[in-house]
């Protein structure tokens, strides 16, 4: 509608939303901006969960403490998987920007989805090990805080996986129209945001808990 000359340009990313006729650039910019605000609100939620975790570190009530239940090995594998999934989502975004077809986009989204599911599988297996060792959230304040922080992140990843599936369906139905592109951009923000949260979890929970 309004070309680069007479309308405000999208300044945040290089994705070619401007060439889609379905959406005004202002509308796309507002849509993305709103999602940034949502992420800020979500970030507060995680910040507070971290704060609670910090205050509950010593509240082990005679049950296992961080050193007894946290295993650095699996957490490192999970970290590698999740960081790789951010890379593959980045490749999906590049495919969206430069590819004429949808093959690259769909491929990288599928890889990202697989990595997300693999991450969840590893995390659930971690939790099962902990449960088998008697480290359940009803045992202590520390374990409660642990089982609030990590599953909250895990649920976010699960929501992200469902979102990827929905987007794959939308690509199948609509191709990459303006709204699909916008939602892929939002999904990308969400996915990378979860990566950042995980880096904090790995540092604060696992590194601090096992190396201290």
């Amino acid at each position: 509608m309004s070309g680069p000359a007479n309308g405000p340009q999208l300044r945040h990313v290089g994705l070619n939303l401007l060439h889609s006729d379905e959406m005004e650039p202002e509308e796309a910019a507002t849509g993305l901006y709103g999602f940034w605000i949502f992420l800020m609100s979500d970030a507060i939620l995680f910040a507070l969960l971290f704060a609670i975790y910090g205050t509950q570190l010593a509240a082990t009530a005679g049950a296992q403490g961080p050193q007894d239940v946290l295993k650095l090995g699996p957490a490192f594998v999970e970290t590698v998987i999740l960081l790789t999934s951010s890379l593959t989502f980045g490749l999906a975004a590049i495919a969206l920007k430069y590819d004429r077809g949808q093959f690259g986009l769909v491929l990288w989204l599928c890889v990202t989805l697989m990595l997300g599911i693999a991450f969840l599988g590893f995390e659930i297996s971690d939790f099962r090990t902990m449960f088998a060792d008697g480290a359940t959230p009803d045992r202590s304040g520390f374990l409660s805080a642990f089982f609030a922080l990590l599953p909250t992140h895990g649920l976010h990843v699960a929501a992200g996986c469902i979102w990827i599936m929905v987007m794959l369906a939308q690509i199948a139905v609509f191709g990459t129209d303006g709204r699909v592109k916008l939602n892929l951009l939002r999904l990308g923000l969400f996915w990378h945001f979860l990566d950042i949260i995980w880096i904090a979890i790995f540092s604060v929970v696992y590194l601090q808990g096992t190396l201290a």
Partner: protein
Amino acid sequence: MSDDGHWLTLLGHLNARSFPFVRAWDDPTVSELIGALAGALVVVGALALVALVTWKRWWRPLVRDWLTSLDHKKIGIMYVVLAGVMLSRALVEAVLMRTQQSLAVDAPGIVAPEHFAQLFSTHGTIMIFFMAMPFLTGLINYVVPLQIGARDVAFPLLNSISLMLTAGGAGLVMISLAVGEFSTGGWSGYPPYTGKAFQPGVGPDYWIWAITLSSLGTTFSGLNFAATIYKKRCPGMHLSRMPLFCWTALCTSILMIFAMPPLTLATALLALDRYLDFHFFTNDLGGNMMNYVNLFWLFGHPEVYILILPAFGVFSEVISAFSSKELYGYKSLAAATMVIGVLSFTVWLHHFFTMGQSADVNAAFGVATMTIAIPTGVKIYDWIWTMFRGEVRFTAPMLFALAFIVTFVLGGLTGIMLAIPPIDYVVHNTVFLVAHFHNMLIPGLLYGMIAGYMYWFPKAFGFRLSEVWGKVAFGCWVSGFYLAFMPLYVLGLSGMARRSQALFEPDYRPWLLVAVVGAFLLLAGLVSLFVQLWVSVRDRAANRVPVGDPWDARSLEWSVSAPPPEYNFATIPQVDRLDPFYWRKERGEAYRPADRYNAIAVPKNSWVGPLVGLAGAACAFGLVWHIGWLTLLGFVGVWIPVIARSFMRDVHRTIPASEIEATERRWLDRAHAARPVPRELETEPANLGLARPFPAQVPA
């Protein structure tokens, strides 16, 4: 045994004793009968409403024109209606509590202790989350897009979802009257008292899930308004040219974005404690209730400013319009608003000075608290200077603004007293505190909301409200406030504990009697508001203001017809200074047709909001009563419409240019035919909403 199992699966913890009617039948005390009557009112009221709508054949218009509408104006009005309904319930509860206390000096009174505790819990919860929040969200929804020259909020569908989530939460609180009971833990729901060990029933669960629904809705509203104000302003509408109400709306939105997550988290963790035996706030196994208190007030203090700032915005608009002057110190008012927003995050600890911090920590938070008085004082002086040498008219909204200035300053002074930790140690948990926060919130929120409602009502509906009944309401609300709450300061200083169901000090009696008279006056204030509405609707033909500017006001919302067209502005306005509409009138440039009109796309109606609200409430109800299938159904029911909606592409409806041109011409013809009225006649039937320009205007 397996039969019991089936019932448990189907109905969870619901049984015959869950219903107040059964409880009253088994044990017909006055207290239980009052409970059953309240429950019956909910049931009969709901049935009567359904019958009325069916009988009048209003279902189709109700659904098509209102419930599924994505128009920010209609969503705003629905928010205010919700607030009015909930205000009525919570005010009746307040009168019941005052009655109880006035009767219960060395006597049992009429309400049992458990019932009394539910009363103060629902009163606080409703007044904050389901009266104040919907009211201010409604006003912001209606007014802000019009003031910044936008056609809607940034995310109209999300707006509808926010409304319906809030309504779902309110519905849950209403259902708790007829099914089960409510929490007895107060509006702040402190554990461990609200934990499973002390309240195993459904009361705290109702509280948790009602609050959760409303806080999610509020988070989305904040996000929506912030994106609207940052991204949807019309050309030339710099931040520094926005009406002050938009500044306060922006600040409130930012506070909502950052302050609601602590509440959501606090209630979620409390739910984990109650449902899955976690130990966040329990007394044993490493639980720490101070975490809850910190989380709750990390939300709770900014919440105070979420509530008060929009009212500050309303008063700024009202005082400027009814003094016919530019706001004095506009920039200082905007800056003070943002300073208050920042400071509001630095004072949460003053809500629990007595809970074990060191004196140094208390002192730091005490000083921070007093600092807030500085920007607030700036505002008070700015409003007074705005009136100075203005052409002040004492209309009902202006009277509320004046009462606010005086009353709010009094409340602020007792706030400074409470900010001093040693004083707080003496009066904490007494009715002195109750008097203080009512002294802030009744003028600082409710008067503002009522003033805003009366001020913008003619814009929204095209006719003015009755001035006479507005003044009656003003008299009741103000005298009622002083009579109801000034005695509480005295009682608090005399050591009367808050939330007391019975009292054993005969000297309290006279003060309590004065307070109950005040409570009934406040109720009379509410009734006068309803009478005002009824009288005004009845006499609407004589009070129409179709041209749209009944108060000779200054900002863009007054530059369109009343009620405004669905698309708000036929052409997006251009703004070159503060108070653009006022200066357009001064320069004789108002009410001009556009060179040409273009077609406008508006959002189509959507069922997503109502479905999400309904499913969210069902999910919450299932959680309250441990009904697994309903919880799951509700949860899935929230997401299905949202995902389905993302597959819809045809979500806009285009209003053709010809239709817009015809609508605009009709309005402009009316404006040109109308006789302009001078300000002194603005409350007369002659006022058709066209103000006579006033010469020799000297900018402040």
